[in-house]
C-alpha cells in the first residue's frame, strides 16, 4: 500500500481494495518503525488520524465516493492545525497549540484528506538542509549521513521513505524544490498568491508560497486543484481563475519551446548534474519539445538580493515573538526589556538569530538604501529577466541545485557556502513565478532534480511537462533501499 501514488490510492479506495483505516494503520506503523532513524515527524497524530479514517470509511460505505476521501497526508509544521502543536521547529513554539487551521489544511481536510501529523523543518523555514530544526535534523533516506535539503526537510523525507504518499511544504527560496531534488520527489512551488498563506507562519512575506511534495506530477496536480484559489483572509491571495490541471496533463509536448538559461550551466554546476540535465533535455526533445539558449543576466545577484529581502522580512515578522502573548518566556525577568532580550535569545536558534541580525542591519538607519532598497531594485531586474525570456519561450529548464546533498554538519559553520547553494531556486521566488523540480537521474546513489519554471499562473504547463516526462522515465518511481 505504501508504494502507491495518491492517484492510485484514490482508485484503490474507490474499488474497496483496502479501507482508509487499513491504509492509515499501515502508514502509522511504518512511521513508528522507520521514522526514529529519519526524524521526519515532529508530531504524529495517531488517534485523530485513525478516527478520521474510520469516518472516511463510513462516508464511503454510505455511498459518498469523493476522489480525495480517505487519502493520507502530513503537513509541514508551519501550517496552523487547530488543537495540534504547530512548532515551526522552534523552541519558542514547542508548546504552541494552534487555535485555528490554515486555509490550505482546511481545504484538504474538507476534501477528505487524513492528516497523519506534522513534519520537521528548518526553524521558521530558515535553512536549506533541515539542520536548523530545534528537534534535530531529518536524514536523507537515500543516505542517512546526508541532509535531505530544506527547509521542507521532513516533508521530503517522509514522502521519499514512503511513510506518507504526499505532503505540504512551503517555498520562500527553494524550500520545496531543493529537498524534492535531493530526495527524488516531484515538488511544486506555485505562483506567489496562488494558494492562500492564511495560517502559514510567515518567514518572508513577499516570497513565501505554500506547495506540495509528491512522487509525481499527477499527484501534485490533484493537490494543487484542491487548494488553489482566492482567500479573502490572505491579503496577497490572487483572484486569477484556477485552471483544470488534470485536463492538460496528457497533452503532448509538440511545439513547446523551452529556454535553457546559460547562467544555470556555469562552472558552479557539478558537471555530473549537468549531464543529468542534458539527458532530460534529450528525452523531452524526443517528446516534441524544442530548446533554445536564453540569458537571465541578473541571476548572479539573486542570492545577495534574496538574503537581504528575506532577512529583512524575517526580522520584522519574528518581532512578534516577544515572550508576552505566546511562545517561550524566560524565567524571572527583571523588567520588560530583560524579558524581551532573554526570551528571544533563549527561544531562537543560531540561524534564525543570524537572519534577524542581517535583516535588522539592512533595515537600520543609514543602511536601508544601500541594502534593502538596492535588493528590491535587483529584484525588479530579475523579474524583468524572466518576463523578457518568456516572450520567446513557454518554459525554462535547468538544474534545481548546483550540487548533490551534502554530508550532515559539513556546512553548518559556513553560512555563505550554504546560502550559495540556493542560486538556482531563489530567482523564482524573487520574481514570484511558479517552479517545479522533478527527479531526472541518479549520481552515486543520490537523486538529481531538474527544475522547470513557467510564466505567472502557468502551473498547468509545469505539471504537463513533468507528467509527460514521467510517462517515459522511471526516476520518480524509485525507492531508497530499506524503505
Amino acid at each position: 500500500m505504501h508504494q502507491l501514488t495518491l492517484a492510485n490510492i484514490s482508485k484503490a479506495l474507490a474499488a474497496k481494495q483496502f479501507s482508509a483505516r487499513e491504509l492509515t494503520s499501515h502508514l502509522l506503523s511504518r512511521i513508528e518503525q522507520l521514522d526514529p532513524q529519519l526524524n521526519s515527524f515532529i508530531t504524529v497524530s495517531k488517534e485523530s488520524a485513525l478516527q478520521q479514517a474510520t469516518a472516511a470509511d463510513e462516508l464511503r460505505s454510505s455511498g459518498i465516493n469523493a476522489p480525495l476521501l480517505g487519502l493520507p497526508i502530513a503537513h509541514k509544521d508551519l501550517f496552523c492545525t487547530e488543537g495540534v502543536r504547530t512548532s515551526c521547529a522552534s523552541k519558542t513554539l514547542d508548546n504552541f497549540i494552534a487555535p485555528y487551521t490554515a486555509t490550505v489544511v482546511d481545504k484538504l481536510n474538507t476534501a477528505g484528506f487524513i492528516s497523519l501529523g506534522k513534519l520537521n523543518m528548518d526553524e521558521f523555514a530558515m535553512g536549506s538542509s533541515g539542520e536548523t530544526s530545534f528537534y534535530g535534523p531529518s536524514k536523507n533516506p537515500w543516505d542517512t549521513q546526508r541532509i535531505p535539503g530544506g527547509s521542507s526537510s521532513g516533508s521530503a523525507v517522509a514522502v521519499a521513505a514512503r511513510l506518507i504518499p504526499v505532503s505540504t511544504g512551503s517555498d520562500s527560496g527553494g524550500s520545496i524544490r531543493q529537498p524534492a531534488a535531493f530526495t527524488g520527489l516531484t515538488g511544486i512551488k506555485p505562483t506567489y498568491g496562488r494558494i492562500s498563506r492564511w495560517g502559514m507562519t510567515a518567514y518572508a512575506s513577499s516570497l513565501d508560497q505554500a506547495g506540495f511534495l509528491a512522487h509525481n506530477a499527477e499527484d501534485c496536480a490533484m493537490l494543487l486543484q484542491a487548494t488553489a484559489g482566492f482567500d479573502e483572509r490572505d491579503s496577497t491571495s490572487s483572484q486569477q481563475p484556477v485552471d483544470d490541471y488534470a485536463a492538460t496533463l496528457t497533452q503532448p509536448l509538440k511545439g513547446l519551446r523551452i529556454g535553457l538559461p546559460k547562467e544555470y550551466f556555469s562552472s558552479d554546476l557539478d558537471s555530473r548534474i549537468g549531464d543529468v540535465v542534458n539527458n532530460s533535455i534529450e528525452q523531452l526533445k524526443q517528446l516534441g519539445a524544442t530548446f533554445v539558449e536564453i540569458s537571465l543576466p541578473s541571476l548572479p545577484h539573486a542570492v545577495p538580493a534574496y538574503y537581504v529581502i528575506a532577512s529583512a522580512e524575517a526580522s520584522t515578522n519574528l518581532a512578534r515573538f516577544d515572550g508576552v502573548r505566546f511562545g517561550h518566556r524566560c524565567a524571572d525577568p527583571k523588567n520588560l526589556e530583560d524579558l524581551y532580550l532573554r526570551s528571544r535569545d533563549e527561544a531562537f536558534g543560531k540561524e534564525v538569530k543570524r537572519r534577524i541580525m542581517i535583516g535588522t542591519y539592512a533595515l537600520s538607519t543609514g543602511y536601508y538604501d544601500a541594502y534593502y532598497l538596492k535588493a528590491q531594485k535587483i529584484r525588479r531586474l530579475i523579474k524583468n529577466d524572466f518576463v523578457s525570456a518568456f516572450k520567446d519561450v513557454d518554459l525554462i529548464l535547468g538544474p534545481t541545485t548546483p550540487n548533490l546533498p551534502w554530508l550532515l554538519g559539513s556546512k553548518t559553520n559556513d553560512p555563505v557556502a550554504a546560502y550559495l547553494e540556493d542560486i538556482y531556486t531563489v530567482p523564482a521566488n524573487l520574481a514570484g513565478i511558479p517552479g517545479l523540480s522533478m527527479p531526472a537521474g541518479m549520481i552515486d546513489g543520490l537523486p538529481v532534480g531538474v527544475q522547470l519554471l513557467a510564466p505567472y499562473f502557468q502551473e498547468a504547463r509545469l505539471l504537463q511537462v513533468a507528467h509527460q516526462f514521467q510517462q517515459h522515465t522511471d526516476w520518480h518511481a524509485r525507492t531508497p533501499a530499506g524503505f
Partner: protein
Amino acid sequence: MALKRCDVEKLAYLARLGMDDTQIDNTTASLSDVLGMIDAMQAVNTDTIEPLANPLEANQRLRPDTVTESNHRDDYQTLAPAVENGLYLVPKVID
C-alpha cells in the same frame, strides 16, 4: 564589509536578542562573511530601476471597515505565558 564588535552589539540590542559575549564574537565573524557576499550587489547599476516589493505588483486589497471576526480572546490567552483577568502580564513598567 567587516563589522566591528560594537556594531554587532548594537544590532543585537535593536533586534532585542540578549546575546552573550561568545555569541557576539561568533556573530561578528559570520555576519561579516554574509555581508561580504551581499555587498557584491553594490556593483550593479540600478540608478534608473524602481524597487519591487510585491512580485505581482499587486496593490493592498481593501475591504469595508466592518467587524468580520468574533472575539477569541480566551482561546488566544490560553497560549500566553502569563495572564490575569483577561490581561497579558508583564513585569512592572511604571513605578
